[in-house]
């Protein structure tokens, strides 16, 4: 179920003195099964863009086609659209409101009119997908830890069985363990065939997980390609206030100091291999 954005422009508060152009002629296609990373400085339009994917916002001009259907069309089935494109907002734990974890995760499927016996099955499935033990089911969500609560919120969207999962900074504000866990679950969900769109400020995260990156600045797409291609443009990224992964930076620094190593390295493992390869080549085992 591809999502296609054609010349999407979006203005906040059009026709008032405080009109702001949040998206400016954005064209892109999200393919089935891909893991798309969306990066850009604060205020570049990332959050606005992802709200177009499930029809929460519709373009001021241009079109968004989800599975060929225009989100702006009269009588578009928005509920079905929101079921297919599951959107997890930033700090999704703020949306949790029910008395028990079970009830909260069941909120989505209930709204979709899923029959009662299937709801329980879906809740169990969603909890398993994000690694929440069944024992938490009857607990109040407000007793859980930050990381657990975020996974409850994620499960609440997964229980709708979306085909595309859109995440706005899923790791913001979590401790390192919480981050690792949630990213692990997202990666596994993608491996199970879910299309994932993830907004992030953490370059290491997207470098490791995404198949393709799209870079936004001032509502425009300034760069897109594989993480390797995108992070090769270090200067451009820095000029718009972004960064490249630390390991990539380190490799560039090494090269500057005369080591003929590859600089398109994105993960620690790759860097280790590349440096080992180089050191093995220089028999003596290295440089001072």
């Amino acid at each position: 179920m591809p999502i296609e954005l054609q010349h999407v422009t979006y203005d906040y508060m059009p026709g008032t003195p405080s009109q702001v152009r949040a998206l400016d002629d954005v064209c892109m296609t999200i393919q089935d099964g891909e893991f798309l990373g969306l990066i850009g400085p604060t205020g570049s339009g990332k959050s606005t863009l992802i709200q177009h994917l499930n029809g929460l916002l519709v373009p001021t001009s241009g079109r968004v086609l989800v599975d060929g259907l225009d989100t702006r069309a009269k009588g578009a089935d928005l509920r079905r659209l929101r079921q297919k494109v599951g959107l997890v907002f930033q700090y999704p734990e703020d949306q949790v409101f029910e008395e028990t974890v079970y009830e909260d995760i069941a909120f989505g499927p209930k709204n979709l009119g899923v029959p009662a016996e299937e709801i329980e099955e879906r809740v169990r499935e969603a909890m398993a997908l994000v690694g929440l033990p069944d024992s938490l089911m009857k607990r109040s969500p407000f007793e859980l830890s930050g990381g657990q609560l975020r996974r409850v919120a994620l499960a609440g969207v997964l229980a709708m069985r979306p085909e595309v999962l859109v995440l706005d900074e899923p790791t913001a504000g979590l401790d390192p363990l919480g981050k690792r866990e949630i990213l692990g679950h997202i990666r596994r969900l993608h491996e199970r065939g879910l299309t994932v769109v993830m907004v992030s400020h953490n370059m290491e995260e997207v470098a490791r997980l995404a198949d393709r990156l799209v870079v936004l600045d001032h509502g425009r797409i300034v760069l897109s390609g594989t993480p390797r291609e995108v992070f090769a443009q270090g200067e451009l990224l820095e000029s718009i206030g972004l960064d490249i992964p630390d390991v990539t930076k380190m490799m560039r620094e090494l090269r500057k100091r005369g080591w003929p190593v590859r600089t398109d390295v994105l993960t620690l493992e790759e860097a280790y291999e590349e440096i080992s390869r180089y050191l093995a080549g220089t028999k003596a085992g290295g440089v001072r």
Partner: protein
Amino acid sequence: MIRGVIIGQYYPVRSTVHSMDPRAKILIATIFMVVLFVGNNFYCFLAMGLFAVLAVVLSKVPWHVVIRTVRPMLFILIFTLVLHLFLTPGPVLFRMGPVTATWSGLVQGLFIGTRLVILIMFTSLLTLTTSPVELTDGLEDVLRPFSRLGVPHHELAMMMTIALRFIPTLLEEADRIMKAQMARGADFQSGNMLNRARNLAPLLVPLFVSAFRRADELALAMEARCYRGGEGRTRMKKLEMHRADYVGILLVVLASVLVVYLRIKFGPVIRGTV
């Protein structure tokens, strides 16, 4: 969706009215309101109306913006007009089934309606030309004389400042939570009243949770900066009265005198009423 609701409606342009001292503006608005209720015929309203028009022109706020402020009150206006039309005794205008509309009812309804429209437009002008911060600063000073009567003027002003400060924040938050729930298939727009009220739980519960958390954090942040009430507190922006302020007050006083004169000269719009 929720952004359409504007409460702090400050209209940012530079004008004589904008740069006036908020205390003067509050004083003028208060006198204006009192005088509006002293006026008892259309001549009085003509004078008040002209004063209001002058103020709007000087404020450089576009007319459509000023007129828009009346819209939320439209229902009350029509309601008032209809009630007066049918419930005032007098010469018959027309009959509609069991009820009778009267000429005096029509005049009375129009009279009250005009009063309301002028009232709303003029008081809106105060908020259109005065930023919330200025407004509360001014209010704090205006209320100061009442502190002897036990009115906590500083605390009241601080509460208002905080409330005003957080209205946009809470609206934004409500918008965000609403969208998050809509992403989970929630429906806030359809269904009957009861259903709609019930459907608000997914919005209101998280909103209250976060509002209480914010209040807590704000209290801590204020204490961390040694806030302890109004005593001995100085202002970054000192309020000063200028010539425009004195002229404004003088004008409203002159208008008041004129209205009192017109009231005595022409008498009530309908004989036997106030």
